[in-house]
């Protein structure tokens, strides 16, 4: 479902003497439907960079980034937009929303984008928010006013509202208490059970071992710096 072949990535800083900073080299990996692969490696090794390459907010310098039938490294913007709407979900570490939109509608939005009727989308959003222990009195408020942990759970609910065939999870269990962590892990388990291909970053080792089928150490892709 997700397959990277010989992907490399570097940043060129034009305003700092055109310094070229290579960050990833020769990335090869494949994730099948129903499989959850954990990315490991020290902080700064490039776990999040790899996810952004797959999601398309970083442009790969070389190689192929296949998600389903689409090569994200070569695709036109509208193809990536369609991919993100219908195929590839991403739970980032930060919630980014239009101010003033109610939490319930933030979570329902991915469903509305694929044409789910408003009532059904809101029902699904409500059940996810309830499952993640967001008190009902907060549902009509904008998540911009929520605590960090609450925002993160809204972000997770949004990421799991629609059944994406492929999912990227960037630290979905960070800063959650045991009960909410268990809920998130069961969401991951059921996504696997319905056949989603998942790539995740989990700092928490117990969580990691519970849901991941195997691990990829991204330090293997870090370019060897001679200095």
């Amino acid at each position, binding site marked *: 479902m997700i397959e990277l072949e010989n992907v490399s990535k570097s*940043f*060129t*800083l*034009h*305003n700092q003497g055109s310094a070229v900073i290579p960050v990833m080299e020769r990335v090869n990996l494949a994730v099948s439907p129903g499989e959850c692969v954990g990315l490991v490696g020290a902080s700064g090794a490039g776990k999040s960079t790899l996810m*952004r390459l797959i999601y*398309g*907010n*970083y*442009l790969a310098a070389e190689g192929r980034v296949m998600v389903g039938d689409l090569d994200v490294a070569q695709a036109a*913007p*509208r193809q*990536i*937009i*369609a991919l993100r709407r*219908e195929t590839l979900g991403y739970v980032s570490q930060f919630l*980014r929303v*239009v*101010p*003033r*939109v109610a939490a319930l509608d933030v979570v329902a939005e991915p469903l*509305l*984008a*694929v*044409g789910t*009727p408003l009532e059904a989308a809101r029902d699904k959003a409500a059940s996810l928010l309830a499952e993640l222990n967001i008190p009902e009195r907060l549902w009509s408020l904008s998540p911009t006013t929520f605590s960090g942990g609450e925002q993160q759970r809204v972000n997770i609910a949004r990421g799991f509202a629609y059944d994406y065939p492929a999912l990227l999870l960037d630290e979905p269990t960070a800063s959650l208490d045991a009960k909410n962590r268990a809920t998130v892990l069961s969401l991951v388990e059921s996504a696997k059970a319905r056949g989603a291909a998942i790539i995740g970053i989990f700092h928490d080792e117990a969580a990691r071992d519970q849901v991941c089928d195997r691990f990829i150490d991204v330090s293997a892709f870090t370019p060897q710096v001679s200095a």
Partner: protein
Amino acid sequence: MMAPQVGEQDMTPLLQVNGLTKMYGARIGCRDVSFDLYPGEVMGIVGESGSGKSTLLNAMAGHHAPDRGEVIFDTRADGPQDTLKMSEPERRMLGRTDWAFVHQHARDGLRMSVSAGGNIGERLMAVGGRHYGEIRAQAADWLGRVEISDSRIDDRPSAFSGGMQQRLQIARNLVTGPRLVFMDEPTGGLDVSVQARLLDLLRGLVREMGLSAIIVTHDLAVVRLLADRLMVMKDGHVVESGLTDQVLDDPQHAYTQLLVSSVLQV
């Protein structure tokens, strides 16, 4: 409300711009701009003041005659047509039906001496609406959608706040169900709280009506929230374009890198 379009099967671009160039004497307004816009897409154009982004918008919308290039619009009746080659009445009709233009200053897009309801109704009448009761009912409906109380329907826009005037301008433009909306700094000059409200409104309307839009702004936060795609202009040229978050998170061109790194973090 109609369901949003899913899996866009029709792959004809709604708008094709080819080699559009506008000079002011020897100075470049915008040069050799080309892109395709598909149904339902929202494209942002960013760049500093004087980069040519408003010139480009006005040239596309037919407000200024460009020196070279084509602006091909997929018309309902006759399919793709070069709007620059249309007769003046044809282009005016397009401007009243399938196209809309939201000005930065609401005063430029409203008739200040006509009531709020009249401002909305006027556009309906321009496309053949004649039944007073229906026009007034639609005007009231649109005031509600842009969150203006219908008790204000007979007030003139000069009695409205800046944010309300901008929302009225949007209602006036969208009442005829256009397929393409040009916006020039739609949130410029408004308080941040009013901006947020307007952004939310625009996003909902884009999704519900399946609109395509081209938004000129200097505000990167606005494009991140509203635009699927982004075009960065400098000195009349397009220096970079692509998926909005790719251009903002991984800018390739020197100027875009400078632009992105110049934003104050809040």
